[in-house]
């Protein structure tokens, strides 16, 4: 029987000074934002230029801001966990609280930090790299963003209203079922992820269509920049993996709110099926967030070594192989579930196989640097720092793939160390490289090197200090997800060191943020549009690019088009000639994507608390908004030639 839970909890989470602090700071921050916007009369601007935009570059910026904020939010969680674990038997956080914090840490880092970060990069770079004016479906792109945004809001809201999820980012049944976890926290988890997940699938479709159908004339598949290729591989994984997550979440939700028995202990439910479905998505997911980083490294390493990428074809094929093979390894997350000898053997060997194409990429990056001229700019520093970290993490991954070894390391801190090495050393470092690399293209100024270097060293040293001891803790038998541990196990010193490392990374983050603020005021302006002596099409445009990107769509003849033209001294071929300029067809801004986001949010919130009237109203609004869209026939306009000429002249390109 579905149970209405609200009766015995208050709506606001209370009872802990830490929570009062969080409640208060969130309310204060919201009031502050409203005040600033009103005071500076910025509401209209916000609505017109941002909330209703369908421009991929602006959507990219919004994803980027959200990702950085969420890194801070979930990073704060991490620091709280590390504080609690610094010493044995501490009571800084109780078990209830700690459980919520590691759950939201993992969930937010993956869904609301890593995912929007890669979406930001796709949006910022892909259309520019392939010579397109926008993505295939700009309106859908805006919907994806708002679904992500409101999904994130829903999850973050749980911290102050109703309570956060506390069954781990994997949310295994039956622990996450109604019987063992009656609070609304789990519902928040299920609905917020469902909502952003729909947005992610839409993004996957959108970018595959963009890349397959909207490349500039002459850009054959084998002339595409490697970042764009990495986005192809990523989105193949997204469209084939995310639906499995959608089903896993939906069925668990149906169990919880409609009393079904998919994953319950009684009436024939099979909790293992949830685990199975979660990882059908879950393993591909780690490559979804990693492959774009691979793309970034490929761009950066060639640019800053002033050399053609080594083994382009191997780079492309290894990414495609990775994206297919990573669909066949999911059971390595539950070698200890008793799948039997044949299941474990199959998935163990399949997991190891991924090391081969991955290794090929590592070697190709290194031999791109070989006989090059390596400029130690920020993007390159992050790329170089990535390799040892990733190789170590990959090595521990290979050990975990050895099923009998995993029997010992499963759910231990050895595993925690492995995946942070991949997620931070691989994904976050990649995102940072991209941040420094494309920042000038997006904002028109370069991020300061000096601040950047300080942040770099804090992050790197902090990283090793934090996570290498965790390998040792794993060898000492320390389990993950323990809110505290006894003294006398020999775990204390290493935990303490690990905590120090975490705070070093925290400082690194603050320095990085400081560097951004500094650069906004004092950073070097990028007047050429090509601050790094780049190789691909986006560097042929002014920084920031005009909203139609290319006044005239270029024709492509070479893989590193821009670099080749520069070598031949023919950069001017990529400048528009007045006689070629024609009216440019652009999509109009629309409020509906935002409203669809709001409607999803309302529906989600309704389901969380079993307020079915609200839920139904939300769903109804969604259908109506979609129908209205279906009747819309003039959702686009043309920029007249005069205006294009005017803009290009002002940019000094005519």
């Amino acid at each position, binding site marked *: 029987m579905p149970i209405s839970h609200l009766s015995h909890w208050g709506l606001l989470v209370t009872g802990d000074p830490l929570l009062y602090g969080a409640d208060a700071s969130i309310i204060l921050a919201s009031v502050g934002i409203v005040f600033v916007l009103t005071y500076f009369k910025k509401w209209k601007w916000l609505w017109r230029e941002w909330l209703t935009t369908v421009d991929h570059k602006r959507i990219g910026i919004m994803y980027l801001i959200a990702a950085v904020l969420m890194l801070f939010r979930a990073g704060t969680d991490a620091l709280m966990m590390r504080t609690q674990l610094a010493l044995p038997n501490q009571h800084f956080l109780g078990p209830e609280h700690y459980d919520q914090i590691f759950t939201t840490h993992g969930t937010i880092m993956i869904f609301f930090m890593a995912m929007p970060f890669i979406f930001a990069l796709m949006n910022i770079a892909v259309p520019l790299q392939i010579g397109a004016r926008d993505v295939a479906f700009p309106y859908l792109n805006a919907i994806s963003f708002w679904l992500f945004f409101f999904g994130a809001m829903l999850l973050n809201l749980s911290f102050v209203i109703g309570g956060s999820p506390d069954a781990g980012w994997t949310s295994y049944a039956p622990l996450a079922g109604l019987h063992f976890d009656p609070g609304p926290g789990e519902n928040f988890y299920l609905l917020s992820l469902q909502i952003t997940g729909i947005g992610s699938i839409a993004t996957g479709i959108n970018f595959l269509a963009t890349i*397959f159908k909207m490349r500039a004339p002459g850009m054959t598949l084998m002339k595409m920049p490697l970042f764009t290729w990495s986005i192809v591989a990523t989105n193949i994984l997204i469209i*084939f993996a995310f639906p499995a997550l959608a089903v896993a979440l939906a069925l668990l939700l149906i169990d919880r709110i409609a009393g079904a028995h998919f994953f319950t202990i009684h009436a024939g439910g*099979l909790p293992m*099926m949830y685990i199975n479905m979660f990882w*059908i998505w879950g393993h591909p997911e780690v490559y979804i967030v990693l492959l774009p980083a691979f793309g970034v490294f490929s761009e950066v390493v060639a640019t800053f070594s002033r050399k053609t990428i080594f083994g382009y074809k191997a780079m492309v094929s290894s990414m495609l192989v990775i994206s297919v093979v990573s669909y*066949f390894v999911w059971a390595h997350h539950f070698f200890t579930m*008793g*799948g039997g000898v044949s*299941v474990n053997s199959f998935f163990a060997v399949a997991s190891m196989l991924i090391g081969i194409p991955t290794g090929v990429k590592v070697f190709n990056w290194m031999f791109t640097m070989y006989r090059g001229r390596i400029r130690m700019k920020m993007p390159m520093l992050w790329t170089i720092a990535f390799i040892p970290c990733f190789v170590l993490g990959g090595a521990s991954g290979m050990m975990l793939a050895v099923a009998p070894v995993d029997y010992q390391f499963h759910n231990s801190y050895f595993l925690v160390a492995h995946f942070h090495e991949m997620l931070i050393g691989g994904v976050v470092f990649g995102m940072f490289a991209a941040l420094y690399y494309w920042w000038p293209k997006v904002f028109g100024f370069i991020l300061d090197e000096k601040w950047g270097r300080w942040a770099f060293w804090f992050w790197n040293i902090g990283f090793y200090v934090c996570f290498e001891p965790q390998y040792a803790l794993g060898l000492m038998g320390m389990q993950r997800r323990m809110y505290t541990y006894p003294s006398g196990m020999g775990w204390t010193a290493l935990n303490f060191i690990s905590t120090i490392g975490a705070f070093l990374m925290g400082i690194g983050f603050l320095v990085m943020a400081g560097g951004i603020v500094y650069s906004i005021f004092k950073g070097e302006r990028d007047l050429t549009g090509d601050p790094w002596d780049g190789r691909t099409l986006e560097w042929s445009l002014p920084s920031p690019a005009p909203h139609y990107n290319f006044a005239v769509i270029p024709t492509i003849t070479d893989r590193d088009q821009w670099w080749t033209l520069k070598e031949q001294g023919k950069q001017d071929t990529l400048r528009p000639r007045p006689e070629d300029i024609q009216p440019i067809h652009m999509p109009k801004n629309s409020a509906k994507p935002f409203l669809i986001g709001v409607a999803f949010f309302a529906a989600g919130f309704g389901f969380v608390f079993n307020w079915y009237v609200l839920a139904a109203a939300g769903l109804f609004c969604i259908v109506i908004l979609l129908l209205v869209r279906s009747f819309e026939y003039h959702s686009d306009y043309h920029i007249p030639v005069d205006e294009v000429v005017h803009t290009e002249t002002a940019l000094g390109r005519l």
Partner: protein
Amino acid sequence: MLNTPESRSGMGHHHAERFPWKGIIGYVLSIILTGFSMWIGLTHAAQFGTALFVILGLAVLQIFVQMFLFMHVTESDEGPPWQVLGLLAGLLFVATIVGMSMWIMTFNGQAS
């Protein structure tokens, strides 16, 4: 807008069939295939295992009937019909999800 009725009919005849042969063949095939699997399923004409195998095979055939005779899966505006590749990959992953889940969930080969 340029979508005048003239231009519309002017292009229709280049490509479109005059008589819906594809559709009719597709319909007849789908009825035959379904009828056949019903016959097998409902009359115990074969052993369970064999019957299951055959009706699954017939269902797979129906995918192709719908794809080619109704959905025009090989059409595209220009360039190769990339959707074919996408759908094939999709089918591979469908088989993986269903097959491997069943395999994993039978919990065979436990320690003895």
